[in-house]
């Protein structure tokens, strides 16, 4: 059986497969959002679903995010398991009341008597010149607010397994997928956006980080593109400088897996946090605070952070490349840290 060819899937096909498996398994699961039907989702996350399950369970909505996310909440309260797509996370401004004042708070305000088993999936990330209103990740904006699980898988395998977990979870889950990791034909083709994905249904937990690369000299914590860039930098550090970086793929922003982060810091004694979100009050600060609270004595050097330097994402290539951290910057930063 060694010769059997392993099936390779893109990120978006892995997501669509996960949703299809859950729709087959549970008739309460349905999908709604803009262009999720015939188009298959602007980033391909619902491709093929309408052909298999029909327009009654894969609903193209008007451009009415408040209405359809609110409707998903109302349907979830009735025991349905909606998967709603907010096309770009940047569009949260037109519907945040439903997301935060309702989806996130109703279970709590009802003393746990109302459950909202729903998934709000949304595209995040820049690096393709889409400018300030279509390039954000807003990881921390969502992760800051209690009442939602917020996950951001980095690989096709995790996209499938975490989507299945998200649909089966009885809590609202914000499922952020990175546009660059969907394997879209109309974007830069990244190796990280394709990999072997098993055909059957499987789950990946929504509260566990993953050590993507073992190392002994420095810990780099990142998520989605920053995790992949950290892996590139780590390979180069190993090859050119003999520095072994441990890369932690956070995968879940809320809840955050403190144990895996602390364990890695205790092993390496150095921490670099890399984020495709704004620097201040963000994920990098949260991870640095975890290090300060739980592993300060283990650190041989100050914690370093790389993130968007508190400016909106600019359009032009040199500007955008300047603000979004890349493998080169991560490499240089680690070298500086190792000298200190």
């Amino acid at each position, binding site marked *: 059986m060694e010769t059997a060819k392993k099936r390779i899937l893109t990120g978006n096909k892995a997501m669509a497969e996960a949703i299809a498996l859950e729709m087959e398994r549970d008739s309460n699961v349905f999908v709604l959002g803009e262009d999720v039907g015939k188009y298959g989702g602007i980033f391909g996350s619902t491709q093929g679903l309408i052909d298999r399950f029909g327009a009654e369970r894969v609903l193209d909505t008007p451009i*009415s995010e408040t209405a359809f996310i609110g409707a998903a909440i*109302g349907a979830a309260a*009735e025991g349905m398991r909606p998967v709603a797509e907010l096309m770009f996370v940047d569009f949260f401004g037109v519907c945040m009341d439903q997301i935060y004042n*309702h989806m996130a708070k109703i279970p*709590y305000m009802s003393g746990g*008597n109302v459950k909202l088993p729903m998934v709000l999936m949304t595209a995040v990330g820049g690096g393709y010149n889409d400018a300030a209103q279509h390039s954000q990740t807003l990881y921390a904006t969502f992760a800051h607010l209690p009442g939602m699980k917020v996950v951001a898988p980095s690989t096709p395998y995790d996209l499938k397994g975490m989507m299945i977990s998200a649909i089966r979870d009885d809590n609202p889950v914000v499922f952020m997928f990175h546009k660059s990791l969907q394997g879209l034909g109309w974007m830069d083709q990244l190796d990280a956006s394709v990999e072997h994905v098993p055909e059957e249904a499987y789950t990946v937990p929504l509260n566990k980080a993953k050590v993507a690369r073992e190392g002994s000299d420095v810990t780099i914590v990142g998520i989605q593109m920053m995790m992949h860039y950290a892996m590139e930098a780590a390979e180069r550090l190993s090859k050119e400088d003999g520095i072994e970086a441990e890369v932690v793929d956070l995968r879940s922003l809320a809840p955050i897996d403190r144990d895996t982060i602390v364990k890695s810091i205790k092993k390496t004694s150095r921490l670099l946090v890399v984020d495709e979100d704004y620097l201040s009050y963000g994920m990098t600060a949260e991870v640095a605070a975890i290090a300060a609270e739980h592993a300060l004595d283990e650190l041989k050097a100050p914690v370093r952070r790389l993130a968007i330097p508190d400016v909106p994402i600019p359009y032009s290539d040199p500007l955008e490349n300047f603000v979004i951290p890349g493998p080169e910057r991560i490499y240089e930063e680690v070298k500086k840290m190792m000298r200190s």
Partner: protein
Amino acid sequence: MTQSNENQSSVSVEKLKWMYEQMVKIRYYEDQMVEVYTEGKKPVFNIGAGTVPGEMHLSTGQEPAAVGIGAHLKKEDTVTSPHRPHHHAIAKGVDLKRMTAEIFGKETGLGKGKGGHMHLFDPEVKFACSGIVAAGIPHAVGAAMAAKMKGKDWVAVAFIGEGAANAGAFHESLNLAALWNLPLIVVVEDNAYGISVPKKSSTSVDSNDKRADAYGIAGAYVKDNDPIAMYLAAEEAVSRARNGQGPTIIEIETYRYLGHFQGDPELYRDKAEVPGLRELDPIVKLKEKLIEKSTDEKELDEMEERAKQEVDEAYQFARDSNFPAPEAALEDVFTS
């Protein structure tokens, strides 16, 4: 559209009695709340002090909207309500003891003291409310979707104030409900003011049922805060929804006897306005109608007593209940 007197006489005495008893219960519940709310707030009013702290929006005078449609609803139908929810909750059959305990912030409350008066959730009778204007409409749309997907004849009712009809969620929700032909009824309670701003200063049409035309759906207008006219308009709307014929907007002209919230100085309206409205009281009028229909006055007295007793027991239950343990604040963010 208004109902003729001939139609009015078609409503059964049983239904009229049900509405009367519910209206008495709501009125008495709110009257008690007016008193309880002042406990611990004298001589100096402090909104965060007393037996019932926080904002308090009472529905005194607005009973007809809730009972006129409530008379047609069953347990499986969904009701969403805004920041002024007590009349809707009572007419939907929300557990009165647990509702009152919630308003008192007690552990026996519907939300174990985490929600309060603007956030009452009773999934047993499918009732929910929200403190954000217009936000409950999309939830009713979702409940209506779920009913349709499950192949049930259940309907969803979203109660809103007339001010909410100018919020984006109103337009988005009605377009979606009309597009998908959902069993949704939006009841607009026009109590003439969005806090202090009169309807004519905020709304481009004189009544929001006219906006039904914009969505290609049915609209109905109920004037004079009339519970029987509301009953008849709701009968048509609920029947339309149950039979797969789509959504309806009903606007009812209603009266807010009290301020927007307790403590509202009401400087925006003439002092004579409320006494004038109270002259037209819908409970008094319905009682007269029942007597006219030769209902025994003793029976009406018994109904009133029963309603009051239920309310008194609910308040007593709330008083006797314990506050939650402080650390319970950490529970119920997520379900396991």
